[in-house]
């Protein structure tokens, strides 16, 4: 593109005198580079939304640091003991591990434009199914196999209802929440089923190099989730299907099959979580993993996952879960009530969403506008 050229032969009807004054002629720089060279926006700052996610995650790390500082200030006696601090970090990560695994699956579903309200119920059903007397007789392998197969199957049913049965995700998974807990109660006869399997229970009590096995599992699932989302065709399809299902469809992506797989993936995570939770509690019952769906959705949201789909990060979700676990820990070590803890959690969810909506830029605009109107 070249600079504006004045036509040498203007029409008679537009004599030079009539010609409007060209206000502020085109800048010397070629217009082709306009925009890219806009102020405060060096090259490479536009690497997708990665920069934005990075900033948000940094914000979450900041929140974590603040929480830990509050802990240090309120309980200097405990934080003075480095052994205790190490144990406490592991305790927080262990507390975050089960919900964390569920949240990874939830993050995929939400990025893919859906929602899975049945995760807690699937964890309970898989946990109960894998701890019946009959299943336990097959040993740890049988229990793990059962939990995972049951959870994936339930996820597939969810996905099938949503993708091919055209049910709204909210409705389908809400129905599954009720049904799966019902089935879990039926199987367990409303009893708490104790796990007598030392291998399973050992998952929660054993360490490797001072780090609990549960934390390794969380790390493994998170790493796998990150790779899956950011480095594979599956992840790419997830973003496409959630970001613009019509565009994905018209680009030849099988949107329905992919949505179904997303719910199966969520189910898989629930199956893994069921084993972890069973190991932690040495038991399973129909009421276990109560409201995990809300914990997982909340963690994903404060981690920056867009509820409408198409955007989200695994790291953000992980940070969200860890923040919640740290709050629980902070309140526990200070002997404060669960009620206050829940209120703070609610506040953090709202604050996180608000921060997402009104970013820093908007805030400065808001201030500028107020200043403008006050001078007027």
């Amino acid at each position, binding site marked *: 593109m070249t600079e504006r050229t004045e036509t040498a032969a203007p029409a008679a009807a537009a004599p030079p005198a009539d010609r409007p004054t060209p206000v502020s002629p085109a800048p010397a720089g070629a217009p082709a580079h306009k925009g890219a060279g806009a102020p405060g926006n060096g090259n490479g700052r536009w690497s997708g939304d990665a920069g934005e996610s990075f900033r948000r995650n940094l914000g979450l790390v900041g929140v974590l640091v603040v929480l830990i500082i509050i802990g240090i200030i309120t309980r200097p006696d405990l934080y003075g003991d480095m052994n205790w601090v190490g144990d406490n970090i592991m305790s927080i990560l262990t507390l975050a591990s089960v919900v964390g695994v569920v949240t990874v699956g939830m993050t995929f579903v939400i990025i893919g434009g859906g929602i899975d309200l049945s995760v807690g119920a699937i964890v309970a059903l898989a946990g109960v199914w894998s701890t019946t007397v009959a*299943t*336990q007789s097959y040993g740890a392998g049988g229990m793990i196999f059962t939990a995972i197969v049951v959870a994936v199957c339930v996820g597939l049913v969810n996905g099938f209802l949503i993708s091919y049965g055209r049910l709204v995700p909210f409705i389908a998974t809400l129905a599954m929440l009720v049904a799966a807990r019902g089935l879990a109660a039926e*199987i367990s006869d409303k*009893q708490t089923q104790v796990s007598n399997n030392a291998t399973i229970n050992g998952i929660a009590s054993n360490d490797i190099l001072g780090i609990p096995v549960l934390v390794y599992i969380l790390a493994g699932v998170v790493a796998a989730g990150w790779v899956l989302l950011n480095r594979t065709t599956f992840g790419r399809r997830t973003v496409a299907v959630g970001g613009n299902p019509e565009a994905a469809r018209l680009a030849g992506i099988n949107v329905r099959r992919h949505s179904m797989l997303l719910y199966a993936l969520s189910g898989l995570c629930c199956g893994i979580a069921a084993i972890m939770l069973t190991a932690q509690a040495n038991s*399973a019952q129909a009421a276990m993993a109560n409201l995990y769906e809300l914990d997982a959705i909340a963690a994903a949201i404060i981690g920056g996952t867009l509820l409408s789909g198409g955007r989200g990060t695994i790291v953000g979700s992980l940070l969200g879960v860890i923040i919640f676990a740290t709050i629980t820990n902070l309140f526990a070590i200070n002997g404060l009530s669960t009620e206050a803890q829940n209120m703070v959690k609610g506040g953090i969810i709202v604050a996180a969403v608000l921060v997402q909506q009104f970013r820093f830029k908007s805030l400065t605009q808001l201030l500028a506008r107020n200043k403008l109107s006050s001078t007027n």
Partner: protein
Amino acid sequence: MTQHDPLRPVRDLSRRRLLLGGAAVGAGALLTACTSNDTGDGSGGNEQVKAADSSANPNSAPGQKVVIGFSAPAADHGWLAAITKNAEAQAKVFSDVEFKTVAAGADAAAQRAALSTLISQKPNVIVMLPHDGKELNASGLEAMKAGIPVVNLDRAFPDALAYRLQIKGDNYGMGVAAGRYIGEQMKAKGITNPIIGEIAGMDELELTKERSAGFAAELAVLGFKVANRRAARFTADTGQAEASQLLRALPKMDALWNHDDDQGIGVLAAVKQANRSEFIMVGGAGSLAAIQAIAADNSVLKATVTYSPSMASSAISLARLIGQGKGMSDLVELQVPKEITLASETITKENASAYTKLGF
């Protein structure tokens, strides 16, 4: 499906080997089989019933036919499950009792609706464990007005006109008993300033507050106090989660009271996972698993204070007597009393064997 007894040794292995062959056919078959909790001994669990032995107690002799309507929440908790089971089992003992149970639904409103239906069927007596005493007070009144005596189980109606008999456990007394046992143990160990933790049940329930109040009051008498308290939700996984944090908050502890033996499975798991053993733990309610653990004396759990679901069995027996117009034979009065509060008993290693049959 019968009740699964977690600590009973698994006996019927041959049957499951058969199932193993079937599993080769496909995971579906395996998974279906895996829903089985049948221990194979045929008897199922251990309902707490009083045999109808008319030679020992003339009241047990078959008499006028009594239709007893029953309603209790179907919550996913061992204690509540035991309530329903005990009631059913006790009713079966009497040949003159017809037992009619209605589902209580998910909340007070659903139970209210179910009760209206029950009242319209005119049973002789209604035994109910309300979702919430206050919210179902009106249903109690309605039944009483219709001439049907109401036996309230465990969760009191505020209005005395709403029930004929109230039989309940002693939540405050539980706390007191737990506090007393811990106090004795501390004294025996010579600990003058013990660090005491508490894992409560669902905090929004009245009974949790009563238990904690009794515990705190008894400890105060001894000059002790609770150092940290976490509220779980009567489930093992929440018990584990809260206990893991409590253990972190109290790096050294002398005693711990856990309100509920069901969530205690998780609490004990957390204790084991944290490798802690420097304290004694007291349970609550008196589950069979807890009683057996106390008898075995191989964990931190040294005692549990009862809040027995056996009250449901007693409620059925007394409802029958009310229906037949009889009194309790050991009492002078010709009618059943209006209120019965069970004492909370403390089960320790010494007396555990006597309580095994009452464990749920």
